[in-house]
């Protein structure tokens, strides 16, 4: 009978729009049959996004409301689809690395490292110890940076504007650190296959150490402000619950899964880099609501600080990139002052690293949003035959579609904020 479809008149992508309205109408048709009469006419279809400031990017939600209650939801994603997996098949491994910055653009460093480590595993490249510690420090900094954006926007979605400014002041410091370390503030592209681009300067080390000591106090203040804040708790407790028994079935990952009671953390499950040599906890909660996710992420930031401090204690001196010219770029000194260095640099740029044909690899790291995995199939050339990104935001958005039902429409924004999706990553 196409009730919704007869009322709407899409202006573009008509088939697409018709299909999504039809799919909304078809969901749980049994419930609809029972609620067929609607004497107060409280039923309403609400389109939210893709251009909506609270959807954290270009996320589109189609909500069926009865009064203020959400009855059914469908998500429409893909507005930021750039086809990075297709691009990857046409680039060398190193050339593709900067594209990963644009996936989860709130923590580009984790993406860079995840790709580089997958390729290193595939081609059996040794990474010097110092480079591994540099990667770890920067990954933890990017985790803090990503969680800071989540914290600021989530608290802003809940109604407190000034908090956003405070978290962004701290994020600004992390950007300055990345500027000093990598030469870029936002899209760092600092990791290289076989190591990192350049070593920490003394100023960078000083800045990171200063940030770590000052941020600890800042974090404590925020805990004091929010942990027992009645307004904040009432807005977040029992909202957007991911039940422990559903969490795995729905495919939740990262802090969303940990807030539902599973201590799943790739840093513990398959320790990569030097995570087995540092001491840290995996914060977990049982409630699965937005407040639990808040506590998990806040505590994770504290753990990140602990990891950074331990890394500085353990970090050895030495080279920062593999010394094998078949595996990694030679240093700029070699390139400018020796013939072989120049040839190797050219070869690395032209064909790049060629892993053995027929090999497959999957490598997952714990990105701020969850398990970020790269699956690569090699055909023996410098380009991957197939590269698949297992994006945590994509999986968490699927959870969103399932948990929104039965919530109030005013909580939608807070729940999206609490799940912390990044559309650049979800849409690939």
């Amino acid at each position, binding site marked *: 009978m196409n009730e919704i479809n007869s009322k709407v008149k899409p202006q573009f992508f008509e088939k697409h729009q018709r299909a999504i309205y039809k799919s909304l109408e078809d969901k749980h048709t049994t419930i609809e049959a029972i609620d067929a009469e609607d004497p107060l006419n409280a039923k309403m279809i609400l389109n939210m996004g893709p251009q909506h400031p609270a959807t954290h990017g270009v996320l589109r939600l189609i909500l069926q409301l009865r009064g203020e209650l959400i009855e059914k939801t469908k998500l429409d994603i893909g507005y930021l689809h750039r086809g990075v997996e297709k691009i990857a098949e046409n680039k060398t491994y190193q050339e593709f690395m900067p594209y990963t910055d644009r996936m989860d653009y709130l923590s580009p460093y984790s993406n860079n490292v995840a790709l580089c480590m997958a390729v290193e595993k595939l081609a059996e490249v040794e990474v010097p110890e110092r480079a591994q510690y540099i990667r770890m420090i920067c990954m933890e900094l990017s985790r803090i940076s990503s969680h800071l954006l989540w914290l600021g926007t989530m608290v802003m979605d809940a109604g407190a504007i000034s908090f956003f400014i405070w978290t962004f002041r701290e994020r600004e410091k992390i950007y300055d650190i990345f500027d000093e370390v990598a030469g870029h503030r936002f899209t760092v592209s600092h990791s290289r296959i076989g190591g990192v681009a350049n070593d920490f300067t003394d100023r960078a080390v000083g800045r990171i150490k200063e940030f770590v000591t000052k941020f600890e106090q800042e974090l404590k203040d925020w805990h004091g402000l929010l942990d027992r804040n009645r307004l904040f708790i009432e807005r977040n407790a029992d909202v957007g619950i991911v039940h422990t028994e559903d969490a795995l079935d729905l495919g939740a990952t990262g802090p969303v899964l940990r807030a539902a009671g599973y201590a799943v953390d790739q840093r513990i499950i398959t320790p990569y880099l030097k995570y087995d040599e540092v001491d840290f906890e995996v914060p977990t909660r049982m409630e699965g609501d937005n407040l639990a996710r808040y506590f998990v992420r806040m505590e994770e930031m504290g753990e990140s600080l602990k990891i950074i401090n331990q890394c500085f204690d353990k970090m050895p001196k030495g080279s920062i990139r593999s010394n094998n010219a078949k595996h990694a770029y030679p240093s700029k000194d070699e390139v400018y002052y020796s013939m072989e260095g120049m040839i190797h640099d050219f070869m690395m740029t032209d064909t790049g690293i060629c892993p053995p044909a027929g*090999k497959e*690899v999957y490598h997952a790291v714990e990105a701020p949003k969850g398990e970020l995995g790269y699956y690569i199939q090699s055909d023996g050339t410098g380009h991957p035959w197939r590269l698949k990104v297992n994006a945590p935001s994509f999986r968490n958005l699927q959870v969103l579609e399932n948990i929104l039902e039965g919530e109030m429409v005013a909580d939608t924004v807070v729940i999206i904020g609490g799940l912390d999706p990044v559309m650049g990553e979800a849409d690939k």
Partner: protein
Amino acid sequence: MSLDLTETVQGVVDGLTSEYSEDLIEIYKSCDHTYIRVEAENIIEVLNFVKTKHHFIFLCDIIGTDRYTSDERFEVIYNIMNLRTQDRIFIKVRVEEEDPVVQSATSLWKAASWLEREVYDMFGIRFEGHPDLRRIFMPEDFDYFPLRKEFPLLGIPGSIELPNTTPDTE
């Protein structure tokens, strides 16, 4: 055949050899992970077997690939984890180029829904029994499957109608 598997994965392999021996095609290791290829017809039973009997309860990802060969062109790979022993296995099936159909895993994991929609969107592999098999990234109006190898990198001009950018004058 010694592959140096962990205890849990060895258990899966033994279980599959005894109960689904005719479905099992190959088992190999690549970069520390175990890949098990089975017949496409019985994929749901095999997945159900590893999920219920061997506690591989967490579906991490479903990967589609285009092998670009004349027979059994497409491959679907299930990335599943056992959270108790923290092992990961990859189960593969291959399907033909003409009318590629795989049974949907949505009855085992709700999470399979979007993952299968992504594989369908990118490769055109249909999942039988999926409750809502629509494209996920590309609009429904798009007629091609972009991650197939024959799809050009620059796209096909005119294949997608772009929204009108001038304001409505109604």
